[in-house]
């Protein structure tokens, strides 16, 4: 079990191109994250947990869909760690497993209003499904 999650973590590191060991644990990413309050696991925890191979909780967390991809953490990190890219890679790792998705197409109409730009729907769907 543990070996499995180490393997997934290594795959995530490889695919994201992020080196979590570079992190000095200053917490600036979480200090700047606009979605912090909505997240169960925060950017610095993503970095730490992937580094230590503890990815199961991350894979199943709704935090994955709260990341706005605003890249504030990426730009402001003093160590060049790029936490957002790691969050993205964890999300991909989850969605690529068979049948995993965050939202069904059928759920969408209820969430729309007249003004919602297409951009939002497209973005959300890129994030929520493979």
């Amino acid at each position: 079990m543990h070996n499995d999650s180490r393997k997934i973590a290594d795959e995530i590191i490889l695919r994201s191109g992020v080196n979590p060991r570079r992190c000095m644990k200053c917490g600036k990413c979480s200090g700047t994250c606009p979605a912090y309050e909505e997240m169960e696991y925060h950017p610095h925890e993503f970095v730490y947990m992937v580094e230590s191979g503890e990815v199961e909780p991350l894979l199943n967390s709704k935090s994955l869909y709260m990341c706005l991809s605003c890249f504030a953490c990426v730009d402001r990190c003093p160590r060049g760690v790029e936490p957002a890219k790691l969050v993205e890679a964890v999300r991909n790792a989850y969605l690529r497993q068979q049948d995993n998705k965050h939202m069904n197409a059928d759920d969408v109409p209820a969430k729309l209003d007249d003004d919602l730009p297409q951009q939002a729907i497209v973005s959300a769907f890129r994030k929520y499904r493979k």
Partner: protein
Amino acid sequence: MQRIGVFVCWCGSNIAGTVDVQAVSEALKTEPGVVFFTNYQYMCSQAGQDIIIDAVKEHNLTGIVVCSCSPRMHEATFRKTAAAAGLNPYMVEIANIREQCSWVHKDMASGTEKAIILGKAAIAKVNLNAPLTPGESPVTKRALVIGGGIAGIQTALDIADAGFPVDIVETKPTIGGKMAQLDKTFPTLDCAACILTPKMVDVAQNDKIRIFSYSEVQEIKGFVGNFDVTIKKKARFVKEEICTGCGACVEKCPMKKIPNEFNLGMDNRRAIYIPFAQAVPKVATIDPSACNMLKNGKCGVCSKVCTAGAIDYTQKDEFINEKYGAIVVATGFNPISMDKFDEYAYNQSKDVITSLEFERLTNAAGPTQGKLLRPSDLEHPHTIVFVQCVGSRCAACAEKGKEYCSKICCMYTAKHAMLVRDKYPDTEVYVFYIDVRTPGKNFDEFYRRAVEEYGVKYIKGMVGKVTPEGNKLKVRASDLIAGKQLNIDADLVVLAVAIEPDKSARPLATMLTASMDTNDFFTEAHPKLRPVESPTAGVFLSGACQGPKDIPETVSQASAAASKVIGLLVKDKLKGNPCIASANELMCNGCSTCANVCPYGAITYIDKEFPMFDRTMQTRRVAQVNPAVCQGCGACTVACMSGAMDLRGFASSQIIAEVDAICR
């Protein structure tokens, strides 16, 4: 033909364990020139050295080969032994049969075989050795200190105290440096001015010390013991000898809105100014970019009010040439620019300040007379957020900031936080930290006092964003211990900005041919054992130009540099390294290739007359190596196309002999 003695060392079992020392000495006895051979347990011991001395005397040896440990270990020892036996110390060669043979090869047969070959190579080399004598050069008994901060001041005072004349060159109108801008000093909280200004006065009153303020080093030539320096004394438009520093001119100057550098632009000065009350030298300086009289000839008020008649609008830059035996670099540091860190809104709000600006805000001589008021509206701040490590400890790939820890920030931030809580107990003080680094005498105790006695709120985490809103600064940050994101409405944000070497350091290093690291800090000759010397002989390092340092460390390094300078200046003559390049004038064709590759500028060209076969004289241009400057790298020997340039002690013929011996 040399008469060579071969001495094979067992080094206990270190060598004898893998190398058959008897076989080695036997095998080497038939080599050309060898007249004596022996082996002994410990050649480096007194008894071993006596064997060498006796053999030299008994067999009239002219060369010695010791097959032993690395020459880096005992070459100096055996050279002294040779000298004691009356031989030139450079007639000794070492065959390294321990580190590079017995210790790395396990098999006796191959170890012995290799040791024999190494011995043969050493013998081949000694056969071509010539006695060498180190050159001597005189020492100018005067030191130059570049930079007049606490580092430069301490170094100058210590050197002068030993009786040697010292010149300080300072770019600003006054000495004192960063320490003069500080309020209190950690961990004792004594006031910086109270301990610095008496030293500044000592410098001014010391008849061994000359101060060149408002001056720059223009050119440096020469070498250890004999530096030739040109100093540019910038025109200050005030006659330094006459000005009494009364300040009447400053008071009457109509140009009142010039940002005051000493207070980091937080208030204004006049076009004619004295940086601060205790300035040394206490003379006025006219800022030519602000003075109306200098710009368009309209004004002249200062000249009218000066009763001493010290104002001189026609003053020109002056150039001074002086000789020095040693140079001390004390160019100090500056906070880095905050342009790449504007998530902290330094460029967007006056109430986001650096720690150095904070020093001025709490300093009784500062823009607010020591009352802590926020720069935007001069209100007393009730919530202050300190952010540590701004621009320090950044990875290179983040493309901003510095990779190193600036070292002083943890302590001065603790000091600031403590002082605020002490003077204004109604103020909330937060310090955001990544790590608190307090190695130093009484340092951690000091930081703990800030927390325990003064109630400073230390939060493990980092500020991510500062947003000015109305008269507040909205601070968004993480609290990693609590697992929370904090939103604090602050009145003042103080950034502990990374420090970097002064911009003048890089061109200075080029002038000195002194090496620097990638951060533009000067490199020391050895990081552990020669921490205050530059690798360039005669150049010494004092203070933050070598790396971030607090005041106690700076002062210790300054005194250490001074003692090294004194150690150099007390010598009447300097002995050089005799293993240097020299040109065979008969072969030199004067092409300058060697001079172009020499990293030290040690090679010059002279016109010299040579007798010809027909008894006429011919003048030719030939290379000459300055023995005091040449360090013996040998770059020129390879560059030389005519083969005129050779390196003593490592002559081409010697190295080829070694190659031949190995390949035989």
